[in-house]
């Protein structure tokens, strides 16, 4: 009987893990994680002066590789939204999944903003991590934002 309870508990734990979050990310000191995050984001943290970091998991039915999604996001931001592609680099999540980071720039009312996007491709899922704010704030919070992006782990 005791053995059955242990097995049941283990299965329950596994089930919880399987049905729960498929990623892990932490908020850096100076940021607060928002509890009632609303779509399209699954997780979001903000700094007092407006810098935001968010994560979303996009379920995919299409069989497309990371290069496809990278190009799709780049085109959308440049061609449709008028953002400037400032940088593009390869990155890795904490669990070693290869990803791509795109850094965009955009002026709003003459003020420069920076928008960073990291894309990781999982099993039938695309993990999208975003960070943004005015360039001045993003420069100021660069270390914290980098730290948060580095804590992303896919499961």
């Amino acid at each position, binding site marked *: 009987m005791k053995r059955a309870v242990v097995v049941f508990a283990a299965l329950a734990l596994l089930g919880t893990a399987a049905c729960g979050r498929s990623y892990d990310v932490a908020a850096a000191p100076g940021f607060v994680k928002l509890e009632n995050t609303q779509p399209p984001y699954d997780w*979001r943290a903000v700094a007092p002066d407006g810098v*935001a970091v968010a994560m979303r998991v996009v379920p995919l039915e299409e069989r497309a590789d990371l290069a496809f999604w990278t190009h799709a996001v780049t*085109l959308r931001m*440049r061609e449709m*939204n008028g953002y400037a592609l400032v940088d593009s680099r390869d990155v890795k999540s904490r669990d070693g999944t290869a990803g791509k980071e795109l850094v965009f720039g*955009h002026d709003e009312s003459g003020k*420069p903003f920076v*928008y960073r996007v990291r894309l990781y491709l999982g099993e039938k899922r695309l993990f999208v991590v975003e960070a943004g*704010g005015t360039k001045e704030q993003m420069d100021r919070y660069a270390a914290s934002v980098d730290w948060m992006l580095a804590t992303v782990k896919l499961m």
Partner: protein
Amino acid sequence: MRARRWIPVCLVTSLALAATSRAAQAGTGREQEAFADQAMARMRENASEVRTRLGSARSSRDVVRTLCLDSKLTQLEVVQRQAEDARSTLRRASLREDMDAMAQVSAVLTRLDGRAKELRSEADRCVGEELAFAAARDERKAVGQKEPELVLEALEVTGATSESPATTRQLITQGPAAPATAPPVATPPPSTPFAPTPAPSGSPYTADTAHEASMLAYSADFTLAVFQVDKSLASVETLARDLGGYLAQRGDAQITVRVPRPRFDEAIARLEKLGDITHRNVSAEDVTDEYVDLELRLKNARAMRDQLAALLKGAIVKDAVEIEKELAKVTEVIEQIEGRLKVMRDKVGYSSITVSFQANAPSPVRTNAILPFTWLDTMGLEPLLNVPKVSP
């Protein structure tokens, strides 16, 4: 009584002689007009032939030959115009039965016909650099002892023809009333087709480019995505100054700089690193033909000015006033041409680069044709930074 009988006979004889004389005059007039028409047809044919050759030289970018043929054609056209004037005068003289005037005009036409033949012959020799330079040298040599008509041609070629061409024609063809011989005229310095004129701004690039056979004015337009516009504008300006260029125009979201042509490629390469380029257009305009034409007009105008100045020295007061008027007009033309040449040399010596910052406006077609993944619509700063309010 016997004498009275002879009066009607004398009258009839006189009338018959007068009629015969008029008929003879009319015949001579018709012959002279026919000769004038033939001469004019030959001139048109000559001009047409030279024009064809000039077109061929231009299309083959033979600058030396182009310059030579252009010069001959211009002179031929002037001769043609003079012949047309003479033809009209001949017609009027023929109607008036003014034999003296007809003889004079016929002589002029004969001379013009001969000159046209000479020009055609000279144009035939415009086949190579060596001969063209020889022709140019001959022309320069002739500036000081040109025939009056040629000076008039130069005036007409430069577009400085006076409001009263007859007066000018008279002044130049007959010279000022007082002295019979004009003082020697300073020969302008020899010039090659692309002889460099002093650089307007003292730039080392401007003078060099004036030597080049092919004069290409380069320009480039770039559109960058809107990000850090002020900083990027400043960077473009700094870049231009670093390369020896200068700022031409600067607005809120656009800047135009000029960079020396030899550093144009370097400027483009550095500009491409400044931001996200969404559109680029690099073009080259060939201004060789226009430049050669202007150089030729300037040469003619200067020769004209020198000739007028020489005439002015020995002119009586009445003529001097007319000459000064013409001199002022020619000087104005020279200044205008020099200005245009300066602008053209600057255009070739410095390439224009315009950088604009402009966001792409999404078109309806693109909106509909974009990927069917709705989550892409929510990418961007706006949804990320607009955090919904929550009650505590």
